[in-house]
């Protein structure tokens, strides 16, 4: 077994009595790619921000986040800052607002290099240039001197990735890295991220609501609902034989030629209802109000059980009736 680069244990994220993440545990091993999927409001992003220690004021994280030999929830801002961008980095959703509008691209990349490594100004510049080349940005020399508003969304996201990769981190957390981009650009950016991560052997924690992205890029997947992990396991297993009704519902609501029909007359199945707001999350299994299988038992919280993949459900979908994966 390779070493763990991230070990999150019983993470709870709350603001006063609103609990958005209710005891999430997850592990990422060196070089592994882990996907976290779920709908809006599942607590995916808050989990990521809690790991990075970047929750907005008012939000609090409890539990343990073990990384680089320390519990990140216990260390000082200074100690944490020396790890952010160096051993652990993050790519955010909206590249339009995530880069400092008053600073040149070059300065934003060399900034992270010079913060964490003892390189000269020239060396930092050379490395920044290399990164831009790797990210296939056109005219990298000019790009160093450009301001964010002069770049397209896809280019900006590639710069973001370059910043995240600059110091060869052990783990990159990517939070919906392509959601804000045009469909045609999404694939290019994902491919670049994929290649760069592979080449450096760094681990990836990919947060997305896009199941095909997880299927294509990740080895392991966690499905979140209502602030909890409801199912997890190797991507192939979970997608081929989902055991939690929610996972199954998610997979079935992906449009495919089978369920739409070639003439578009088919009906796309969907999960009934919608994610309840945080303050109205049902007790017990959070999914029970939308689940066909729910009964009295579901009022107590189920635990994750299983061997190859694990699901938190009192009435798991039987393995005998596999749902067509993608």
């Amino acid at each position: 077994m390779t070493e763990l680069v991230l070990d999150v244990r019983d993470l709870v994220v709350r603001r006063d009595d609103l609990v958005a993440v209710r005891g999430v545990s997850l592990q990422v091993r060196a070089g592994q790619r882990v996907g976290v999927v779920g709908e809006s409001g599942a607590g995916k992003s808050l989990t990521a921000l809690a790991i990075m220690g970047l929750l907005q004021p008012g939000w609090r994280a409890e539990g343990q986040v073990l990384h680089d030999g320390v519990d990140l929830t216990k260390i000082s801002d200074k100690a944490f800052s020396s790890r952010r961008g160096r051993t652990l980095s993050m790519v955010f959703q909206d590249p339009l607002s995530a880069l400092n509008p008053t600073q040149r691209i070059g300065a934003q990349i060399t900034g992270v290099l010079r913060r964490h490594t003892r390189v000269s100004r020239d060396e930092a510049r050379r490395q920044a240039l290399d990164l831009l080349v790797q990210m296939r940005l056109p005219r990298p020399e000019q790009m160093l001197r450009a301001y964010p508003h002069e770049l397209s969304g896809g280019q900006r996201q590639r710069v973001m990735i370059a910043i995240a990769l600059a110091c060869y981190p052990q783990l990159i957390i990517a939070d919906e890295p392509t959601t804000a981009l045009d469909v045609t650009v999404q694939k290019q950016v994902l491919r670049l991220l994929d290649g760069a991560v592979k080449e450096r052997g760094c681990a990836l924690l990919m947060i997305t609501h896009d199941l095909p992205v997880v299927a294509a890029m990740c080895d392991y997947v966690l499905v979140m609902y209502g602030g909890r992990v409801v199912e997890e396991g190797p991507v192939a297993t979970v997608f081929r034989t989902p055991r939690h009704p929610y996972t199954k519902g998610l997979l079935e609501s992906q449009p495919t030629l089978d369920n739409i029909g070639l003439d578009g007359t088919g009906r796309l199945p969907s999960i009934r209802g919608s994610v309840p707001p945080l303050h109205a999350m049902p007790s017990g299994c959070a999914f029970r109000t939308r689940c066909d299988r729910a009964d009295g038992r579901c009022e107590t919280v189920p635990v994750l059980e299983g061997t190859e993949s694990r699901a938190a459900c009192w009435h798991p979908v039987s393995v005998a009736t596999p749902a067509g994966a993608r």
Partner: protein
Amino acid sequence: MLVFLARRFAFFVLALVVSSVLIFSLIRIAGGNVAAVMLGKGASPQAIDELMAELGLDRPLPVQYFDWVAGMLRGDLGTSFRTGEPVTDLLVDRLPVSVPLALAGLALALLVAVPVGTYAATKAGTPTGAFVATLSQVGIAIPVFWAGVLLSLFFGVKLGWLPTGGWTPWTVSVTGAIRSLVLPMVALGMVMAATLTRYTRTAVLDVMNEDYVRTARASGMTKRAALFRVGVRNASLPLVTVVGLLAAELIGGTVIIEEVFSLPGLARMILSAVSAREVIVVQSTVMVIVAFVLVVNLVVDILYGVLDPRVRVTR
């Protein structure tokens, strides 16, 4: 950038022209008759007309306007009808009072407001933050002249540390001049600081909530570094604009505070010129003040263009 500069400069010139026309017509239409005032009551209409002709005030208004503008372009602000003194000389006498007062007041306001506002922003949501916010709210409600009165009451009358009014010229005693300026400057600065603190707090809060601050933190900046290198720098953009807008207010405050402390500055000069119906003195002095504000705004906008790369493209 060049287009931006050219457009901005064109507006500056336009603003100068429009305001000179405004000032001229306002003062000439409502300005009263200088000759009548000079000759006193009971002067014959004939004598008044003769004096008007002598002063060149009987010419058509457009001619007088262009004459005035042409003079200003040559650096000649006209002369006082009554004393024959050039307006430039009158101004030079008054500026050593008004300019240091206004600039020191502004500097003090910035020195107080930027750190306090930033501090209040970092403490938003805590009792300390609420306290600072309330304090600045109260400060905004204090009229500058009352602040002056309170200060001279405390430091002048009660403690006797500083003069409660009056002016010692720089040429007589530098420390004396400074001593006469301290209280007016503090009154002006504190009242402006209250407004600026509020703006600073909002600006820093806005910036600190931006995604790019989170990016900076995610790439290893400590909270402090993010606050100062990203937060305050980017918050300086809206602040620069506010300072530009405050330039007009600064002048108003200076005029009032000069009156509180009986300082022989621009306020006195305008007031006495107005009551003597010295139209040239009034219109030239007001024009100089307006031009000053316009220059400040020009500089502010150019500075904005330098600080914020987006402006150069979008404007």
